[in-house]
């Protein structure tokens, strides 16, 4: 049985250092929810507050309608997967997975059945009787996952579980985690600093910066409709261009006019804004923003160009590698996909797109 988690005004301090100044969050029942942010932004801290390993200086944590602030970790029925796996070094794989069941006084044959099922689900049945010291990181992580899930937790918490694995294993484990999470429908809070991982694995993502949530949304939303300039630059790459609002969705960039498809209806003429444009949304044309090629890199399927625009800004453009590479120094005209560009207010950096028209800025 899994639960919805809701956090109201959570505050965390270490001495005088306020790490989380007042954070609220709703996580739905059965959802795969990811906390994404750079190192030191407070992800682990928040996760450990949910788990019960950190004191809570303010606010309420709920599992469904029940306040859990003062419930000790062992009574919260959580499954936790740690960054360093935290496999019990003196126990075999089987004993590791069985541990939580033993703590719940579940006896053989049920215990044996559940452990065996779990081991085969994460595909490590053959390691059953081995100690962790001679296992690879990937194998240890599978045990950690099995150990956390076998107890049928209400909530599964994972703190950068894949960051110690090599690139190939990481992608493989992503799908293992995703598959098992969906199969059991456990509400999952997943912490990572890796945006590709977050985008590929989550139902929803919360982007955190310095203990404050910048945006919560589906992978599509956080990538395509960033709520503020922090999200836009944190996820994926973006080039920034200064622009001024003209009218009816059209903006002026150093004398050249573009018409953005989804610009907010509430803007006033002359309002200063910043446009964020993804590298793959740029293209070269007969006319547009003029500039010179400054650098070019061949990336296999794409050419990556750095273009110094005549107005002083610099952009990065990914162009399909169909023709010849354009040489450095060549004069080009740059345009971008007006469907997809995002605009943010010059002050405050909040989105000026119609998706956020309902919200108060």
């Amino acid at each position, binding site marked *: 049985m899994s639960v919805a988690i809701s956090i109201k005004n959570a505050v965390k301090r270490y001495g005088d250092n306020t790490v989380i100044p007042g954070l609220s969050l709703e996580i739905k029942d059965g959802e795969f929810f990811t906390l994404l942010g750079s190192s030191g932004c407070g992800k682990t801290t928040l996760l450990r507050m949910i*788990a*019960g*390993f950190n004191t809570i200086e303010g606010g309420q944590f709920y599992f469904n309608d029940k306040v859990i602030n003062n419930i*000790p*970790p*062992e009574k*919260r*029925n*959580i*499954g*936790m997967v*740690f960054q*360093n796996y*935290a*496999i*019990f*070094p*003196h126990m075999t794989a089987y004993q590791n997975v069985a*541990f*939580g069941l033993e*703590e*719940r006084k579940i006896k053989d044959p049920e215990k044996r059945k559940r452990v065996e099922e779990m081991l085969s689900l994460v595909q490590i049945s053959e390691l059953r009787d081995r100690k962790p010291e001679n296992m690879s990181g990937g194998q240890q992580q599978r045990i*950690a996952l099995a*150990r*956390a899930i076998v*107890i049928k937790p209400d909530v599964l*918490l994972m703190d950068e579980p894949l960051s110690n694995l090599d690139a190939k294993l990481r992608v493989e484990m992503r799908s293992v985690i995703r598959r098992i999470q969906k199969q059991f429908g456990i509400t999952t809070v997943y912490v990572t600093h890796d945006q590709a991982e977050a985008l590929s694995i989550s139902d929803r993502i919360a982007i955190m910066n310095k203990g404050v949530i910048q945006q919560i949304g589906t992978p599509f939303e956080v990538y395509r409709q960033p709520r503020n300039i922090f999200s836009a630059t944190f996820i994926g790459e973006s080039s920034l261009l200064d622009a001024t609002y003209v009218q009816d969705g059209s903006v002026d960039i150093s004398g050249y006019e573009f018409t953005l498809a989804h610009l907010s209806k509430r803007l006033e003429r002359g309002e200063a804004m910043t446009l964020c444009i993804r590298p793959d949304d740029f293209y070269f044309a007969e006319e547009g923003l003029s500039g010179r090629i400054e650098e070019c890199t061949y990336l296999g399927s794409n050419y990556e160009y750095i273009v110094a625009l005549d107005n002083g800004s610099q952009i990065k453009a990914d162009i399909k590698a169909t023709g010849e590479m354009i040489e450095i120094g060549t004069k080009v005209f740059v345009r971008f996909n007006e469907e997809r560009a995002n605009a943010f207010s010059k002050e405050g950096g909040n989105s000026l797109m119609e998706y956020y028209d309902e919200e108060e800025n």
Partner: protein
Amino acid sequence: MKKRISFDYWSAITLITLVFFILFFLFPVLQIFIQSVYDSASGTFSLDSFKKFFSRSYYTSTITNSFKVTIAATLITMVTGTMMAYFMKTVTIKARKIIDMIVIVSILSPPFIGAYSWIILLGRSGVLTKIINSLFGISFSGIYGFYGILLVFTVKMTPLMYLFVSGALEKIDSSIIECSENLGCHGVRKIRKIVLPLIMPTLLNSAFLVFMRIFCDFGTPMLIGEGYRTVPVLIYNSFIGEMGSDYSFASAMSVIVIAFSIVIFSLQQFVAQKSTIKMNSLHPVKAEKKKGAYGFFANFFCLFVALLSSLPLLVIVVLSFRRTDGIYYYNEFSINSYIKAFDTAGSAIFNTFAYSIVAMLVILFIGVLFSYVSVRRPSFVTKVIDVIITMPYIIPGSVMGIALILGFNKRPFVLTGTAVIMIVAYIIRRMPYTIRSSSSILRQIDSSIEEAARSLGSSKSRAFWRITFPVMVPGVISGALMSWMSIITELSATVLLYTTRTQTISIAIYQEVIRGNEGVACALSTILLLTTVISLSIFFRLSGKREIAL
């Protein structure tokens, strides 16, 4: 919050540890300070004892004696230990493994065995003395006094110094040496410019350690010193011995010794802080085959050290199996000495094992649990205790013995003459080591495994007992074996605290030596030695290493 002040399991351990150290360490040591200025005859306070000490060269000479012999032995072992370490690490030495084994056994062998067997070899009527005298037609009357003590300590401490320095040499990456050679730095110059500076911090630290060990040793100067009296001997004599017991005087001297110890200890801390070098070696320097005089000398030197360290042990073991009537040894195999040993010292053997095991159990119980609190739930109180437990390191055994007697020879705490006071002495002296080693083991165990257990439903204390504790056990047991070996050979505090009912093997050996019952003494020493070797093999099995850390 309510949680803060709740009194749990862990605060109980902290409290027990605190009370234990206050009652059995701070309180008795405080008694020394009081006694040293308290004149029991008139019931007034005075500095007479200190005046008495400093006014007569008979007393003050013990300090110069102690320092002379300690400094000389320390300096020599620094040279010999370093030479041996350098040879063993850079030159292929024959029988390297055997040498290493001998070195370790010799380090862990009972400290006074050395003095005793050198008397058998080079004493007035020693085996070697006779050979020398008949060979050269001289009348060498045996090695006693300054040179005797110096010989014993040099032979005993060179292996220890070797062990420390080779640990440091192991951390030098071979690329550093190669690099210096590429830059044109060879031979003696290379050693002086590169190797020595890199091992200097370790060398200095070990020198301080060796210094303290020699300075505090009671058995060796007592047995072989004769007229050459060192401070621990004088403390013992003035407390127990010839001139009747003068508590006030013995206390005053203890205070002086503590003062010296503190100075030396602070010096060591200061030097250690100034000169730490972080080294981490991927490719330790490899031993190479060296031809010619250098290679020969290196081999000869290492073998010679090993021979000298094993000689005292061999002598003891061999003599223990020779038939003897107490004065003469006959060329016959016999286990008579053992039968006599069990007859006369059976209770001593029993006591040794009983006391040391009880002491170890207490040390393990409190030490492990307290180290957990101090590492995982540090508080003001645990920090205070952490400071207190560094003090027994610098209090010599004889001083601790006196402190315990002064603290517990009158109401309300009468413990003198009981087994309890001896066990307490062992606990106080060894607990700090266990707390330290357990703490460092704990720091290496990731705390997340305990959190994993809690997330799986274990309470705090269950998580400790089912997860952290079992992971700690092998390391803790290894450390405990080390402590145990030093407890069963403890003499300097024991000799002040025992009574006929509570004597131990080391006391029995000491007494048999004094009485001239050498066969029994050798048999008892062999029993101790055997115990050490067995413990050592268990230790190696448990730790899976071929090294020891002291």
